[in-house]
């Protein structure tokens, strides 16, 4: 019954073609038809949102065998942003995961018409990304390198070739372009209808004109939904409500924070060109001109992402508004100028209309998917940043995999809802941030850019103090962290000018900080780290931690253990350091952006036991990292306690007094492999301890340092960081951390079985350190991350992070090496021998640099020498 009803909807909609069909089809639905259908009393899954996301999730769930699915749409199918979408499918994305999603969508949409019999208007047009500047071309070359290695054909072409590819383009101001021949255009509304139709055939029940009021939650678990037509009991709920996702998330008793905000988005439709454009005319993206142009019914469709976006619906919205938004020609003027510059012949083309279709944006320009950290069974797929059509298929598939298998087949941490917390859900924050995000879509993306809006939300108590000393800041999870400290006599370039793919202007500043870490002592404010305390009355804390973590935590009090928090397949859910404060309490330090994810993970596995307490103490402690050989001297002078390795061995934690302040948790580790201490200071003592450290440290040459120095130090020492190098699909064995896994610690832990198997069978990828050989730091492009790695000319993987090693005087990249079979392309076991016997190259924007592969950090050649220097130095300072 449902399917017939749906088909009638589809037929009615496709009877009137084009963009005006919305209004013409609106009156066609009779009220009786809608009310006659009663909702089912229960279902396994309820999906809210009949746009391309909701239908794609339904489609993929049903394909994977989950057929007890209900899809609810408040208006009619494919009526929101999906209806107004420009219909461009492009795979040239900055993130590999986004490239993969778009590539999958492309393949899915292509065969959809055949599968469902519904016309989707799919035409393979190819797309051309223009570069007006050399920097833009570098950016395109980087994308090109990455597209090629995942099997998407693309090439960098000359302006002359661009002119051949597209007849109307003015190419005089171009330096080159990226041509992606397999990109396509498609009618997104029809794709959504086709997906819905296929899902419906697979058993998914679709109800339009049904408004969801709120999701019912009991004990942190989805139990059902309340609609204007009654209740449905369900285990899983999927929020695909697009523009409405934020409000829908907050409508529950237990709110789910989904940080999305809409901006108005404009594009133009024209009448056909005098000799109508072919339907396979390539789509053009002129990011420097901030516009895109595709063929549309013989004319063109052109829109863009302007510098001054208009955020909308900050105070909430209703469905009608989205259809009645005003055209704003004055606002569109810069984009129109840009369009006529790019295609001067278009001046005589007659306008059909200027479409105003709001798009949703997220705080970091990446879409949002995954399960809510607070409500189990509550899934989200929203915030597509204007790429809903490109991502729709792939994102729907990953989310369906997530629901069915527990985790997608690819690591999607970059898109995970849990990368955000409640702190990103302020409407003011979102409004300000999306105004920066929307133009950023077409801004040049260079390494190390930071968002400028929505800053200074979370700060350390030392913020002002450090800022006055020249700190430049970056933000992670709302927390301000110092990048480096600009000396008073040095001026850095303005933000815009400092954007570069080459050697940055802070190179010497960070060099000095690194040198100071190596030779004297530096202090880095690392308060942003996520800090949890787990305590219990009995052994419950130890028991649960032993089950959740791979290393053996049953260590003597005062010891620190580096350990992974693994999932069933042995992959890292989190990588942390845990100090055993007492028999029954543990202090856990994780990366900054783990605050929500790790909390949710622990909560999920911790038994309901009032004697077992998990507390987030991130805000309670300021963390100072004292790095360097003289950290010992500074601390012992401040505490009147011997701090030498004999008295205070490595990976040791002790509460002691520093200056006047008591109860400082001093830990002998620095997260960099350098000697030194982390001080966890109750915040009210932070300023005091900092002042004492700085004044005592003066004679040891102390100075402030920032995260860039830390990064250089840790990468040089082959310290992998979770979130950059490690993710949910990498196991400890794949990154040489066997020593942090105690398979025989006597207790089972999550992922143990997978690791045992892997230990027997061998690993299929291996984190490797690469030292660039023929790379000229001053003149060559710098590596960033995501650069393809070639072994003996064969692609074997991508880099995950990179930094300049000031000691090695070389660039160091970390990255995974795979072993793809030359015949079948299948992944094979990677052995140390395989790694060591290869000749490696790293591809930076199309240029390959020779690299030496290392499986273990380069032994500190200078250790001995430095010790000698130290003695000489201390002689000097001592007198």
């Amino acid at each position, binding site marked *: 019954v449902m399917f017939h009803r749906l088909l009638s909807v589809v037929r009615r909609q496709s009877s009137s073609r084009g963009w005006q069909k919305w209004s013409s089809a609106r009156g066609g639905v009779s009220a009786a038809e809608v009310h006659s259908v009663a909702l089912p009393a229960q279902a396994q899954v309820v999906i809210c949102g009949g746009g391309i996301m909701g239908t794609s999730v339904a489609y993929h769930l049903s394909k994977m065998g989950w057929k007890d699915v209900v899809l609810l749409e408040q208006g009619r199918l494919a009526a929101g942003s999906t209806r107004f979408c420009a219909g461009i499918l492009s795979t040239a994305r900055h993130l590999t995961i986004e490239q993969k999603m778009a590539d999958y969508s492309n393949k899915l949409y292509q065969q959809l018409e055949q599968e469902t019999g519904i016309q989707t208007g799919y035409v393979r047009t190819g797309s051309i990304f223009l570069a007006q500047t050399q920097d833009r071309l570098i950016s395109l070359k980087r994308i090109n390198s990455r597209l090629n290695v995942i099997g998407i054909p693309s090439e960098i072409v000359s302006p002359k070739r661009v002119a051949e590819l597209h007849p109307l383009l003015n190419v005089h101001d171009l330096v080159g372009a990226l041509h992606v021949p397999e990109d396509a255009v498609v009618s997104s509304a029809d794709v959504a209808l086709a997906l819905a139709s296929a899902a419906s055939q697979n058993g998914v029940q679709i109800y339009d004109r049904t408004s969801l009021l709120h999701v019912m939650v009991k004990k942190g678990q989805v139990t059902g939904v309340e609609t204007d037509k009654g209740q449905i009991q369900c285990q899983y709920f999927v929020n695909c409500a697009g523009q409405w996702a934020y409000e829908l998330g907050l409508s529950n008793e237990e709110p789910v924070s989904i940080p999305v905000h809409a901006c108005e988005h404009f594009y*133009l439709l*024209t009448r056909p060109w005098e000799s109508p454009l072919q339907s396979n005319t390539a789509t053009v993206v002129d990011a420097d001109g901030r516009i895109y142009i595709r063929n549309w019914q013989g004319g063109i469709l052109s829109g863009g992402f302007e510098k001054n976006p208009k955020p909308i619906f900050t105070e909430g919205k209703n469905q009608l508004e989205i259809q009645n938004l*005003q*055209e*704003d*020609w*004055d606002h*569109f*003027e810069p984009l*129109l*100028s840009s*369009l*006529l510059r790019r295609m001067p012949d*278009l*001046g*005589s*083309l*007659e*306008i059909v*209309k*200027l479409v105003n279709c709001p798009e949703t944006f997220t705080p970091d320009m990446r879409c949002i998917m995954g399960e809510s950290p607070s409500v189990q069974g509550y899934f989200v797929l929203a915030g597509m940043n204007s790429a809903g059509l490109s991502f729709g298929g792939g994102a729907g598939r990953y989310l369906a995999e997530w629901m069915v298998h527990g985790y997608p087949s690819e690591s999607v941490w970059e898109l995970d809802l849990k990368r955000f917390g409640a702190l990103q859900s302020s409407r003011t924050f979102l409004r300000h941030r999306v105004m920066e995000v929307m133009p950023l879509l077409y801004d040049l993306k260079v390494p190390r850019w930071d968002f400028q809006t929505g800053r200074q939300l979370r700060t350390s108590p030392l913020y002002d103090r450090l800022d006055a000393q020249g700190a430049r800041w970056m933000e992670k999870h709302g927390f301000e962290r110092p990048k480096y400290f600009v000396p008073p006599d040095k001026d850095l370039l303005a933000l815009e000018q400092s954007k570069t793919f080459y050697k940055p202007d802070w190179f010497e500043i960070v060099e000095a900080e690194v040198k100071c870490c190596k030779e004297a002592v530096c202090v880095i404010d690392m308060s942003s780290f996520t800090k949890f305390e787990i305590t219990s009355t009995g052994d419950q804390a130890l028991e649960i931690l032993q089950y959740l973590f791979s290393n053996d935590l049953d260590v003597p009090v005062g010891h620190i253990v580096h350990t992974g928090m693994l999932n069933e397949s042995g992959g890292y859910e989190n990588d942390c350091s845990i100090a055993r404060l007492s028999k029954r309490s543990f202090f856990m330090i994780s990366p900054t952006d783990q605050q929500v994810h790790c909390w949710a993970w622990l909560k999920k596995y911790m038994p309901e036991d009032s004697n077992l307490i998990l507390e987030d103490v991130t805000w309670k402690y300021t963390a100072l990292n004292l790095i360097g050989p003289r950290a010992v001297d500074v601390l012992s002078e401040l505490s009147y306690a011997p701090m030498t390795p004999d008295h205070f061995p490595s990976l040791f934690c002790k509460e002691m007094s520093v200056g006047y302040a008591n109860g400082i948790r001093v830990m002998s580790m620095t997260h960099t492999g350098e000697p030194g201490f982390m001080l966890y200071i109750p915040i009210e003592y932070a300023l005091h301890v900092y002042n004492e450290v700085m004044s005592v440290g003066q004679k040891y040459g102390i100075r402030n340092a920032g995260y860039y120095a830390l990064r250089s130090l840790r990468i040089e020492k082959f310290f992998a960081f979770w979130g950059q190098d490690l993710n949910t699909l990498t196991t400890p064995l794949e990154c040489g951390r066997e020593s942090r896994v105690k398979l025989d610690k006597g207790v089972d832990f999550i992922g143990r079985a997978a690791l045992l198997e892997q230990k027997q069978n061998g690993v299929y990828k291996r984190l490797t350190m690469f030292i660039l050989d023929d790379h000229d730091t001053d003149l060559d492009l710098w590596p960033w991350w995501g650069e393809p790695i070639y072994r003996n000319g064969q692609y074997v993987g991508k880099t995950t992070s990179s930094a300049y090693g000031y000691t090695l005087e070389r660039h160091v990249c970390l990255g995974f090496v795979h072993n793809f079979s030359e015949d079948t392309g299948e992944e094979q076991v990677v052995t140390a021998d395989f790694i060591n016997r290869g000749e490696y190259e790293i591809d930076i924007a199309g240029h390959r640099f020779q690299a030496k592969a290392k499986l273990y950090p380069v032994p500190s050649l200078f250790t001995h020498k430095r010790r000698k220097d130290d003695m000489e130095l201390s002689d000097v300072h001592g007198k």
Partner: protein
Amino acid sequence: MCVCPGPRRIGTPVRSSSLPLFSDAMPAPAQLFFPLIRNCELSRIYGTACYCHHKHLCCSPPYIPPSRLRYTPHPAYATFCRPKESWWQYTQGRRYASTPQKFYLTPPQVNSILKANEYSFKVPEFDGKNVSSVLGFDSNQLPANAPIEDRRSAATCLQTRGMLLGVFDGHAGCACSQAVSERLFYYIAVSLLPHETLLEIENAVESGRALLPILQWHKHPNDYFSKEASKLYFNSLRTYWQELIDLNAGESGDINVKEALVNAFKRLDNDISLEAQVGDPNSFLNYLVLRVAFSGATACVAHVDGVDLHVANTGDSRAMLGVQEEDGSWSAVTLSNDHNAQNEREVERLKLEHPKNEAKSVVKQDRLLGLLMPFRAFGDVKFKWSIDLQKRVIESGPDQLNDNEYTKFIPPNYYTPPYLTAEPEVIYHRLRPQDKFLVLATDGLWETMHRQDVVRIVGEYLTGMHHQQPIAVGGYKVTLGQMHGLLTERRAKMSSVFEDQNAATHLIRHAVGNNEFGTVDHERLSKMLSLPEELARMYRDDITIIVVQFNSHVVGAYQNQE
């Protein structure tokens, strides 16, 4: 003491438009920079020699930003910099001979000059309702004289309803315009007060109680009041209201605004005259009152109370009403008559007031007695007092006055004083909803711009800020090219409008910078504003503008009530 300061008001008239300053690019105006050109020539000669012998030195002159040199607010600094400037000019000229060099002020510099004196006042709204027919006003001044001789005042009457706004154009110094700007509104306010209030005030003064505030001033920080004379001014004012109390004892009829304005003007001028004759034991004050009396000022004052608008004018400043027609276009309604030689009725009046045999000498070369441009003014006792009185006052006055050639000079053909009066001509206008704003401005504006243009520019500015109608394609055949042209035009308009937050500033920008097409030419604006002090007066007069905006809703409501 200012001796015959500008060529405009007293002395030989100079027609700014006939000067060749803006006829062409740099070479022509260069002739006018006579102090500059001399230096320039010198250094050119010197520079040529230098160039021949020390080529390598000359080829890399130290870069001095031209803008910084060009704007030379202080004469000493200017003199100091000029040789350098011409040196730079020269060497640059040699290197890029084909491109004419520009020394213009940058747009931000222009803006900072234009905006230095701008002031805006918005009538506060009460409970979201604005019951005043005045929305607010914008005012601004651009000096040409150093120091500026124009003054402006704005105040709200606190004991009666209504708002007073006025512009005052001083001549032979700024003493008189300053005094009138401080005092006139008090005289008007007192003239408007009912008998009981006057009594109340007098009793308060008598018993040393706190005085009812009469006026709430709306002043720019640069608009000052002289502290020293406040006591003297207060006493004169008190004498005035005491007389009003005596005069009206018993009768409490309606106060006629027109009469009140005329009385206030005349009384103040009389007081200025008397104070100068009586003198003051304090030598500073004595000198001050003499300076006030011997200099002069015109005044154009508007009193707005509900829909009743009175404009009292003495001299050649002007009040212009901006009326928006039904089709949206703007027209100007003049609410004042200039009192100068261009006004036949004024010439007629003067001739009637004096014996027939003076008919030829009383207005000569379009000036009063061949000297004074405005035919009505405050102060200017040289045109009011008898010769005896003038001589007596000057002789008994302080030395500075005695030494001054201008004050001692008796106008020719001076037989039947007074030749000059401060009595205003009052014009009443009942506000209508289509009356959107009133421009009060000194002649510095009106001689550079036509009244129709003034009203159009202000009108478009005020409405443009509020509602430039959005464009919608809806049904029309428009091509991308046409739309682009339309949008570019709109943007250009908006950007020039949005540069100013003040209608008066916007008007000054046009007055000084308009080219032949009626649009602001930055180059011209920059040239005009970078004229050295001693030259500025040759090209323009002081400009003072107040733009009062009316609240059409309130005006409409008044209309409907009746």
